């Protein structure tokens, strides 16, 4: 029998090793798997490479992981935010490596890894600082830059509903990087707000087929500190 549901966040992240590359979904507050990041902080893995659109906000989630100096390198598109002070401090002190990637290249490099593509030529970034040193090619009169896939050991994603095969649906713009990150990691761990019996999710509406998901943990919506419905009063 296939049973991907794991009883706790702690159990889901227990085997993540020092030096691992970890993808973290989310854009803004939507789809941030902060509960899994919190469990990883508690678990203690260090020397991590993090792939996320941003570089942490405020004091929780990725920001807390950065503050605890568990992250060696971050691959992201938009680190600078009003409340990214932990990243800002580490970056200015030269204590964290940054690979800055245009957001569409980030998404497509992740997708390429998941799809078994060895790289691709994209017009994005051609002639800019972010394409320096990269192979370029003219195709049908237009210039392109060669970009390589981004693989990960683990992906943390936040979905809405799931079943024991790992099939997932998302909620509105909380989908963002979830589906592509799920494809690109050796182990994808998803949180959902609702576990449903097999066959309940409309097969026409499943966004991430369970083949891309290895572990799934149900979390309370009320306890969600970012994204999801508003906090209950």
């Amino acid at each position, binding site marked *: 029998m296939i049973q991907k549901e794991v009883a706790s966040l702690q159990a889901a992240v227990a085997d993540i090793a020092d030096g691992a590359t970890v993808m973290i979904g989310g854009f803004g507050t939507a789809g941030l798997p902060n509960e899994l990041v919190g469990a990883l902080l508690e678990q203690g893995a260090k020397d991590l490479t993090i792939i996320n659109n941003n570089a942490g906000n405020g004091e929780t989630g990725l920001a807390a992981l950065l503050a605890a100096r568990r992250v060696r390198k971050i691959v992201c598109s938009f680190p600078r935010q009003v409340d990214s002070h932990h990243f800002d401090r580490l970056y200015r002190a030269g204590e964290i490596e940054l690979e800055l990637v245009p*957001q569409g290249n980030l998404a*497509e490099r992740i997708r390429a890894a998941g799809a078994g593509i060895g790289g691709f030529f*994209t017009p994005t970034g051609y*002639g800019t600082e972010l394409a320096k040193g990269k192979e370029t090619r003219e195709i049908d009169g237009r210039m392109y830059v060669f970009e390589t896939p981004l693989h990960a050991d683990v992906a943390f994603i936040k979905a809405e509903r799931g079943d024991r095969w790992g099939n997932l649906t998302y909620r*509105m*713009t909380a*989908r963002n990087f979830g589906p592509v990150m799920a494809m690109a990691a050796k182990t994808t761990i998803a949180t959902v707000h609702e576990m449903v019996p097999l066959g309940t999710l409309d097969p026409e509406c499943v966004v991430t087929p369970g083949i891309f998901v290895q572990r799934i943990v149900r979390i309370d919506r009320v306890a969600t500190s970012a*994204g999801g419905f*508003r906090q209950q009063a």
Partner: protein
Amino acid sequence: MAARVARDIPDGAVVNLGIGLPTMVANHLPTGREIVLHSENGVIGMGPAPREGEEDFDLINAGKQPVTLLPGGVFFHHADSFAMMRGGHLDVCVLGAFQVSASGDLANWHTGAPDAIPAVGGAMDLAIGAKKTYVMMEHTTKSGEPKVVERCTYPLTGIGCVTRIYTDLAVIDVSRRGLAVVEIVDGLSFDMLQARTGAPLERA
């Protein structure tokens, strides 16, 4: 400026409005046109901001502000969202800028200051992807330096990607023969506009 940009967006267009000044275009879209807003975080068919107390932070725009969804609106993941841009499926994108060059090069992501933390987001994908890339910006910097220039001195976002420039002083097309002035605000002469511009202008 926002109203002037909005006037040029045709019925049926799918449009991405960049963060900052361009966001204001949404408030000026002419009634009677069905214009569909795309946001790179995975939504087409964005509606106005929700009423206070009805915000849902799973439904946000690229500026991370809560929005609403219009009937017909859809959600999709990031790789699809950027395929819509890069693949040339968006009709128009409207972006802010530090500088635009005479050949349509755009600089809008980084000042290049040594202590600045670089952040690019979707700027480079947006700049090169849409069928038309409109730039909306003040004609000069606060200290009076031209922002329409011969060559950009700030780090580039994209090469030859800008279609049209909207400033507080003029509307300028980036054409094969150079910068062609489409409109000038009342009371400003062509020569006065040229004096505030860092590259040669053509009369329309």
